[in-house]
């Protein structure tokens, strides 16, 4: 296998008593779009700042193309950052902002002019060279920050919640543009967000962080369909997380009812957590499914109806395009492939960590 572009090895970082990252290891392959996902304060920015060289890890090393760069200052790392708050230079024009890195590295005037024009065109701001920063909208400032970083042709681009300050519509547009930009430039992205939709939409690999640990790492599909623990399951989308008992391989008991499933290797009669996505629950005639219950709420949320069904002592969240009125008796069913089994955390400590959203 080829060497990773960036490798974080056993990084530990604390601010005073507050241990933010605890023995974190992570590899980023060349040309990959990796997203760090986690709730506010979980250490996403800290991780990205360690890669950028703005924080020193207390322990561990940062490798870039196989070389140890832990002690290399930020200005001598072959990467650029789009900061959480853009950090544009307010006294310079848009063009001068974008040109900053090129001027510092002593490029010719002609090269700089062409590159600035190219960079601004790439982010759909052609002709904005002479505008002042404060005359731009949030989305435009965000794109100037992008252009300022990419004209330097870094190997790696770090993006710290670049879309955090934008409204929903603009954010969706920018997600699309970012993805395009990445394809066009062929550079590696390390992206930070606390928005799970953003992470799932854009990334090749999602790294879910919480409490200083990596909770799960994988493709968006893996993270969504096969969450490894309750934290990931509840953080990524809506889901029903219920206690269950793994009777044997391929059979789990939920609220006393046996459900066939596809998971193996959990042992026999072991307590587990079961995750079922609301869109995977099927509503049948009473008696025709596995768990009988009653619809207790029903709201229309756009494409489908979101209903709550009380069955087996749990209020199940169900999403369906067919509406079932409140009070109707129904029966819940689910196909084996849509049942996701997770190991129950062994100690209370581990559980607290996992559920500390």
């Amino acid at each position, binding site marked *: 296998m080829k060497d990773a572009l960036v490798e974080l090895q056993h990084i530990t970082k604390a601010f005073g008593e507050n241990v933010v990252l605890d023995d974190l290891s992570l590899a980023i392959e060349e040309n990959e779009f990796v997203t760090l996902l986690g709730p506010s304060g979980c250490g996403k920015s800290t991780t990205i700042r360690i890669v950028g060289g703005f924080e020193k890890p207390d322990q561990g090393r940062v490798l870039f193309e196989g070389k140890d760069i832990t002690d290399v200052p*930020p200005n*001598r790392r072959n990467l650029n950052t789009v900061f959480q708050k853009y*950090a544009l230079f307010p006294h310079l024009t848009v063009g001068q902002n974008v040109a900053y890195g090129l001027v510092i*590295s002593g490029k010719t005037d002609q090269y700089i002019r062409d590159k600035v024009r190219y960079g601004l065109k790439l982010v759909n701001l052609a002709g904005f060279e002479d505008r002042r920063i404060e005359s731009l909208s949030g989305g435009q400032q965000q794109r100037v920050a992008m252009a300022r970083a990419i004209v330097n042709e870094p190997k790696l681009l770090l993006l710290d919640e670049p879309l955090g300050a934008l409204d929903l519509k603009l954010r969706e547009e920018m997600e699309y543009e970012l993805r395009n930009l990445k394809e066009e430039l062929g550079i590696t992205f390390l992206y930070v967000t606390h928005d799970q939709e953003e992470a799932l939409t854009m990334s090749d690999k999602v790294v879910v962080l919480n409490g200083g640990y990596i909770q799960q790492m994988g493709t968006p599909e893996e993270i969504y369909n096969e969450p490894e623990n309750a934290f990931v399951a509840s953080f990524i989308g809506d889901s029903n997380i219920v206690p269950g008992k793994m009777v044997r391989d391929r059979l789990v008991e939920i609220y006393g009812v046996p459900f066939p499933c596809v998971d193996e290797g959990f042992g026999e009669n072991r307590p587990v957590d079961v995750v079922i996505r609301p869109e995977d629950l099927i509503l049948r005639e009473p008696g025709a499914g596995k768990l009988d219950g009653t619809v207790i709420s029903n709201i229309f949320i756009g494409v489908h109806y979101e209903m709550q069904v009380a069955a087996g002592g749990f209020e199940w969240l169900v999403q369906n395009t067919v509406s079932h009125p409140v009070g109707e008796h129904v029966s819940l069913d689910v196909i084996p492939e849509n049942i996701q089994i997770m190991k129950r955390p062994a100690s209370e400590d581990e559980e607290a960590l996992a559920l500390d959203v």
Partner: protein
Amino acid sequence: MKKALKNIYLIIILLFLYMPILTLVVLSFNQSKSMFKWTGLSLRWYRELFSNGEILRAVWNTFSIAFCAAVAATLIGTLGAIGLQAMKKRPRNLILSVNQIPLLNADIVIGISLMLTFIAAGLYLSWGTVLLAHIFFCLPYVLLSVMPRLRQSTASTYEAALDLGASSFQAFLTVVLPEIWPGIISGFLLSFTMSVDDFVVTHFTRGAGINTISTLIYSQVRVGIRPVLFALSTLIFLVVLLALLVSNRMQRKEETA
């Protein structure tokens, strides 16, 4: 009617504000030495002013000290502000409150304590001790006008500059300095004004031989003020007025730019 009233009101206020200065200006052109009798227009006092070595020396002392003190205080204060900004919150707030003490302290206490310190340190009271004293009381003003500028996101733009390949010195010159420049300028101007304006501290730290404009005038009050000093005050007033107009003009330009 209402408008006329408004204008009259405005004129009264302006008269009230500028009457004393106007009196001074008029009297500086009076031919006689009297403060009450107008005996005719003359430039006599202006001529005397420019041939009076003592006054010219005092003018020179005043402005050379003000300039040097403002430069030194601005330099030290700006560097201090940057250092403070990088400190942890607690020690920073502690130092900032200590910084307030010279601002609130009575001039006379500062003057006497500085004088005692200089003497205890074996310094001969002279131009140099006045300069040191002025740097001392100007510093807090510089710190106060530069600090707020530094708080505004400067740390993150500085990091952005590093990220784009600038060395820390380049980043300071191209990003931090332009952002805090207005604070530095206003710190400099404040210091300059405070220094020119000062009487009490100068009085205690100047020693025997040297005078600034304010101490000179004070020493002459006892023997009777000569209209030469009116002429001097008029000139100073004009210089200040000019500086004000220029700075206003510059500000307006910046706003429209």
